[in-house]
C-alpha cells in the first residue's frame, strides 16, 4: 500500500476548489464571504488535547500559568484528530493553534505538512529525557505495562514482565491487548527475548511470530483505553496492557487494580503548532510553557505521568516519583516514534489482517 | 329565472381516455338537477369540473353569468357535500359549520347566529359542541349539509351524499334535502347512481352514460318518455322489444296484435325499431280468447306485497315483465298458465331517437 504523504504537502485551497467542481466552488466562494468564527490575529489561542482529566490537569497548571503571565486567552478544545487537522490546513480554515498529541501521530502530522517547525529559540530544549523533534516538542511521557487485580492475583500469581505475560502455563488467565500494533509489537519482541534497548528497528516478522503464540489467549483486543481498566474491574480479563496513569486514577477511586512498573514501554506526548497559525508566536510561547520543569512537575503531580525534563523530577512529590518508570532502567523501552511514523501504516494493515485470520 | 350554471362544450380527457365528451348543460337558479348514471359514466368528473378540483381539457364553465373556467376552486363561491361527510375531525360541529363564515371574516355575532340557524335547519342545534366522530352517520351528513348552505353559496354540489347511509335514513334525508331546497330556493347539483333518489328529488335529471349525457329531462318525462334504450333500461323496470313498423304510427307486435296511433314514431314502414312498454301499462287476462292480444304463458310469479310481478313469455319467445296491483282474487296466477297481453298505443315508447327529444 502506498501512502499519500509526499502528496499531502502539495494540495492547496485552489486544488480543492477545482476538485469540488464548479458548483461546490461557487458555494464555497459564496460561503467564504460570510462571517465565520475564524480567530483574529491577536485573538485567543485555541489549544486542543485529548480532554478528560488529563487536559483538565494541564489547564489548571501549565495553561493557567501561561494565561496569568501573558494575558493571552487560551480556549481549550478536545479531540486532536489528525483528520480534522489535515482538513483545516488543506482548506485554510484553521481552528486550532496548539495541539497536544501522542507519539507517532505528531510526527506523521509534521511530515504531512500540517505543523509548523518548532521554534527552538523560544522553546527551551535543555535537559530533555525524550529527544525533541523537528515539528513537535515532548512534554510528558506515559508508561504502558501490565495491569491486574491484586485481589484475584496476589503477589507471585501475576506476570511481572512480558516474558511472563506470554507464559500462559505459569500465569493462566485471560489477556487483554490493544487492537492496534503500537506497543504490541514491542511487547511481543521483549517477550521473545529482545532487550528493551535493542528493539528498534523492530523485527516485524519476529514480532508477529511471537504474537501468534499469545493470540489464542487474548480474550479481547481493546479499542479504547478506558476499557483496559473497566474490563479488569468487571472481571472480564485477568491481565491487561494498560497505562500507569489510568491504573492510578482507578486506585484513587478505590478500585482493586494494580500495575507493574517494570519492563514498561514509555511513549512521549508532544505539543505542536498548526501550520499557518495566525498566532504562531504566541502559540510557540505556550509550547515553551509546556516544557517548563516546574509546570511539568505540577501537572505530573496531579496525573502521575512522567515529565519530559529531568530537571522537573526535583519538583515531583515523593510518591509520584516512586511510581515513575525508570527511564535509565535497561528493562524500560522508549517508543521510537520516528520508526512508527515511517512504518505505522503498513504494519497496521498487516496487524488488522492478522487479527482477522 | 336566471341561469346559474352553463357548461359550454366542457370536455375532460386523461391522455387517450376521454372521461367526459363535450357536454352542454344549463341550470337555472333554484333548480335541483341530478346527475344520474352508473359508476364510470362521467358524473363525478363533471361535478369535479364544476367544483374546480380538476381542470377541463376544453370548453367553458359559467357560474352566475361569470366565466369561471380559470377561476380556482376557492373563488367559485360553491358549497359541497361529500359522501364521506368530509367534516373536519379536529373541529367541533359548530366550528365546522362556522368554517366558511370565518374564512369570509364575518363578525363573530353574525357567525354564531348563522351557525345556529343552519343547525336548526337540520334539526341538530344541540350537538354544536360535540366532535363529528361522536355523531351518527346521518347526523354527520346533516351537519355537512348545514355547513354547505350556511354561507349561501350560489350552487351546492352534492356528491352521493346519502350513499353511506342505510335505507331508512336515506329516505328521511331525501325528504329533508328536498324540503331545504324548496324552503331556501338553493340551486343544487346532485350526483347519485340511485334512480329512486333522482326521481324523488330532482326538478330535472341528467342521465349520463360512458362520458356523455344520454338525456336531460324532468323525472316524469324521463320515466315515461325515455329517449334511448339505455335511459329506458336504467330508470325503472322496462320491457324493450323490437317491433315492425307498418305505417304511420302503426306497429305490429305479434301475429294477432297490432297497434296504431303510437305517438312519436318516426321510422319508415318496413323498419324494425325498439320500443319500450312499462310493466304497469300491460293488461293481463287469463286464457287467449280476446281479439288483438299477445298470447303468452306465465313463467314466474313474484309476489312483492302491494304489487305482483309476472314474467310471461310470448309464442315468439319474447319475455315481458308485467306488474299488477295485488288483489286477493288474483292469487290464482301460476307458472304455465296461458295468458293474453295487451297495451295501449299511447304506452308504447319508441327508442333510439325514434322520438324527437
Amino acid at each position, binding site marked *: 500500500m502506498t501512502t499519500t504523504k509526499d502528496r499531502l504537502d502539495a494540495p492547496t485551497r485552489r486544488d480543492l476548489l477545482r476538485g469540488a*467542481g464548479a458548483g461546490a466552488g461557487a458555494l464555497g466562494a459564496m460561503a467564504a464571504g460570510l462571517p465565520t468564527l475564524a480567530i483574529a490575529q491577536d485573538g485567543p489561542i485555541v489549544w486542543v488535547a485529548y480532554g478528560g482529566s488529563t487536559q483538565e490537569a494541564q489547564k489548571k497548571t501549565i495553561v493557567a500559568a501561561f494565561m496569568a503571565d501573558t494575558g493571552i486567552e487560551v480556549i481549550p478544545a478536545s479531540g486532536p484528530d*489528525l483528520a480534522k487537522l489535515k482538513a483545516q490546513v488543506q482548506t485554510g480554515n484553521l481552528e486550532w493553534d496548539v495541539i497536544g498529541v501522542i507519539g507517532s501521530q505528531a510526527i506523521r502530522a509534521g511530515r504531512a505538512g500540517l505543523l509548523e517547525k518548532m521554534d527552538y529559540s523560544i522553546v527551551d530544549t535543555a535537559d530533555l529525557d525524550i529527544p525533541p523533534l523537528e515539528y513537535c516538542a515532548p512534554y510528558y511521557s506515559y508508561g504502558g505495562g501490565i495491569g491486574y487485580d491484586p485481589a484475584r492475583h496476589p503477589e507471585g500469581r501475576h506476570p511481572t514482565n512480558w516474558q511472563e505475560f506470554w507464559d500462559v502455563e505459569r500465569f493462566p488467565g485471560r489477556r487483554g491487548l490493544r487492537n492496534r500494533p503500537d506497543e504490541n509489537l514491542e511487547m511481543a519482541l521483549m517477550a521473545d527475548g529482545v532487550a528493551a534497548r535493542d528493539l528498534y528497528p523492530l523485527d516485524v516478522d519476529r514480532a508477529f511470530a511471537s504474537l501468534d503464540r499469545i493470540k489464542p489467549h487474548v480474550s479481547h483486543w481493546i479499542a479504547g483505553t478506558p476499557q483496559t481498566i473497566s474490563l479488569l474491574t*468487571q472481571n*472480564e480479563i485477568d491481565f491487561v496492557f494498560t497505562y500507569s496513569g489510568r491504573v492510578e486514577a482507578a486506585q484513587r477511586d478505590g478500585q482493586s487494580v494494580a500495575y507493574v512498573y517494570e519492563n514498561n514501554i514509555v511513549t512521549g506526548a508532544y505539543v505542536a503548532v498548526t501550520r499557518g497559525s495566525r498566532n504562531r508566536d504566541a502559540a510557540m510561547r505556550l509550547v515553551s510553557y509546556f516544557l517548563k520543569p516546574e509546570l511539568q512537575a505540577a501537572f505530573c503531580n496531579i496525573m502521575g505521568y512522567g515529565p519530559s525534563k529531568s530537571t522537573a523530577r526535583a519538583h515531583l512529590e515523593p510518591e509520584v516519583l516512586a511510581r515513575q518508570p525508570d527511564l535509565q532502567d535497561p528493562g524500560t523501552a522508549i517508543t521510537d516514534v520516528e520508526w512508527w511514523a515511517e512504518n505505522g501504516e503498513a504494519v497496521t494493515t498487516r496487524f488488522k489482517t492478522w487479527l482477522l485470520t | 329565472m336566471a341561469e346559474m350554471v352553463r357548461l359550454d362544450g366542457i370536455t375532460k380527457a386523461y391522455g387517450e381516455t376521454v372521461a367526459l365528451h363535450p357536454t352542454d348543460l344549463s341550470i337555472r337558479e333554484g333548480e335541483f338537477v341530478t346527475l344520474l348514471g352508473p359508476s364510470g359514466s362521467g358524473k363525478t368528473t363533471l361535478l369535479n369540473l364544476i367544483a374546480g378540483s380538476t381542470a377541463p381539457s376544453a370548453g367553458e364553465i359559467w357560474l352566475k353569468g361569470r366565466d369561471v373556467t380559470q377561476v380556482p376552486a376557492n373563488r367559485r363561491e360553491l358549497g359541497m357535500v361529500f359522501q364521506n361527510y368530509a367534516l373536519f375531525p379536529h373541529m367541533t360541529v359548530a366550528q365546522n359549520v362556522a368554517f366558511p363564515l370565518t374564512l369570509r371574516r364575518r363578525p363573530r355575532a353574525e357567525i354564531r347566529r348563522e351557525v345556529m340557524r343552519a343547525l336548526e335547519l337540520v334539526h341538530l342545534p344541540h350537538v354544536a359542541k360535540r366532535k363529528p366522530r361522536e355523531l351518527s352517520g346521518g347526523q354527520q351528513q346533516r351537519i355537512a349539509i348545514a355547513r354547505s348552505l350556511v354561507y349561501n353559496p350560489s350552487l351546492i354540489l352534492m356528491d352521493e351524499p346519502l350513499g353511506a347511509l342505510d335505507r331508512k335514513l336515506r329516505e328521511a334525508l331525501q325528504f329533508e334535502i328536498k324540503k331545504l331546497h324548496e324552503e331556501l330556493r338553493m340551486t343544487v347539483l346532485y350526483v347519485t347512481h340511485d334512480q329512486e333518489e333522482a326521481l324523488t328529488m330532482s326538478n330535472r335529471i341528467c342521465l349520463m352514460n360512458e362520458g356523455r349525457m344520454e338525456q336531460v329531462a324532468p323525472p316524469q318525462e324521463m320515466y315515461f318518455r325515455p329517449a334511448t334504450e339505455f335511459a329506458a333500461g336504467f330508470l325503472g323496470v322496462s320491457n324493450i322489444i323490437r317491433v315492425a313498423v307498418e305505417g304511420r304510427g302503426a306497429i305490429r307486435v305479434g301475429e294477432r296484435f297490432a297497434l296504431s296511433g303510437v305517438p312519436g314514431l318516426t321510422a319508415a314502414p318496413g323498419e324494425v325499431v325498439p320500443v319500450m312498454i312499462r310493466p304497469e301499462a300491460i293488461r293481463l287476462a287469463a286464457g287467449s280468447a280476446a281479439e288483438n292480444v299477445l298470447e303468452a304463458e306465465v313463467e314466474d310469479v313474484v309476489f312483492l306485497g302491494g304489487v305482483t310481478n309476472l314474467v310471461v313469455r310470448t309464442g315468439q319467445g319474447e319475455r315481458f315483465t308485467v306488474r299488477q296491483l295485488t288483489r286477493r282474487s288474483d292469487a290464482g296466477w301460476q307458472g304455465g298458465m296461458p295468458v293474453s297481453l295487451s297495451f295501449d298505443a299511447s304506452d308504447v315508447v319508441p327508442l333510439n331517437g325514434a322520438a324527437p327529444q
Partner: protein
Amino acid sequence: MRFIAPALVLLVAAFLLPLLYVVYLSFGGSSPSLEKYAAIATEPLYRQVLLNSVYISVVSTGLTLLLGYPIAYHLEAQPPRRRTVLMILVLMPFWTSILVKSFAFTVILGKSGIINSFLQWATGMEGHLPMLFNRFGVVVGMTHFLLPFMVFTVLASLLTQGPELRRAANVMGATRLTIFWRIIFPLSLPGVMAGILICMIMSMAMFITPALLGGRGDLMISNLVEFHVRDTLDWEMASALAVCLLAITGVFCIGIARVRGGQLFGEEG
C-alpha cells in the same frame, strides 16, 4: 414542485456535491488513478472486511426484524394513549450515549455480567455463555441501536391498513394466523422492506459498536474508513472504501426495488 425546491436545494448543496467530491477523491483527485481500487481488489484485508460487514449487517437486520415486527404489531394494537407511552419506551435508547450504552452492554453480557450471573444462579451451571467480544456482542449492540428505526417504519405501514380487510377476512372465516399471513403481513411489506433497507445501510455504516463490543474478527468496512480518515490520513483510500460501501448499499437498494416492482420506498409512486 415549488414545495420540493427547498429540500432539493439543501440536498444538492449539502449532500450531492460533497458526495461527488468523495467520488472524485477516490479516483485519485487531481491526479486520476485507479490505484486505491486496485489495492482494495488485491489486499485480502479489504475483501475479508467487506464480507464481514455484509454478514454482520444481514444478521443484525434479520434479528432486528424478528424483534421489531412483533413490537410494531403490538404497538399498532394498543389504544392511542398507551401506544404513545410505549413508543417513548422504544425511543429511550436514543437518549443514552452510544459509549455509555456499550459499557452497559459489557455489564449485561460479560462473563461475570448480569445475564451470566443470573444463569449461573438459576441453573447452577458452571462457566458462562460467551456473549461479549464476539459477533454475538456486535449483533446485540447493533440490534439495540437499529430497533427503533425498524419499529417505526413497520408501525407506519401497519397503521395505514384499515381494519375493514381484516374484518372481512374474519367474517369469511379466516383464523387469526391466516389473517396475519395472508393480509396483514403482505400489506405491511412496504414498511418491512423500507425497514430492512434502512437497517442494512445503517449497520453497514456503524463502527463504534463493533469496535467496543466485537471480537478481533469483527472489523467492519466503516472501521477501515475511519482508520484511513483519522489515522493514516489517506483520504483517497477512505474515499475509495466509501465508494465501495456506497456501491454495496446501491446494490441493496436495486435488489429491494426489484423485489417490490420498481418501488424503493413504496412511497414514490
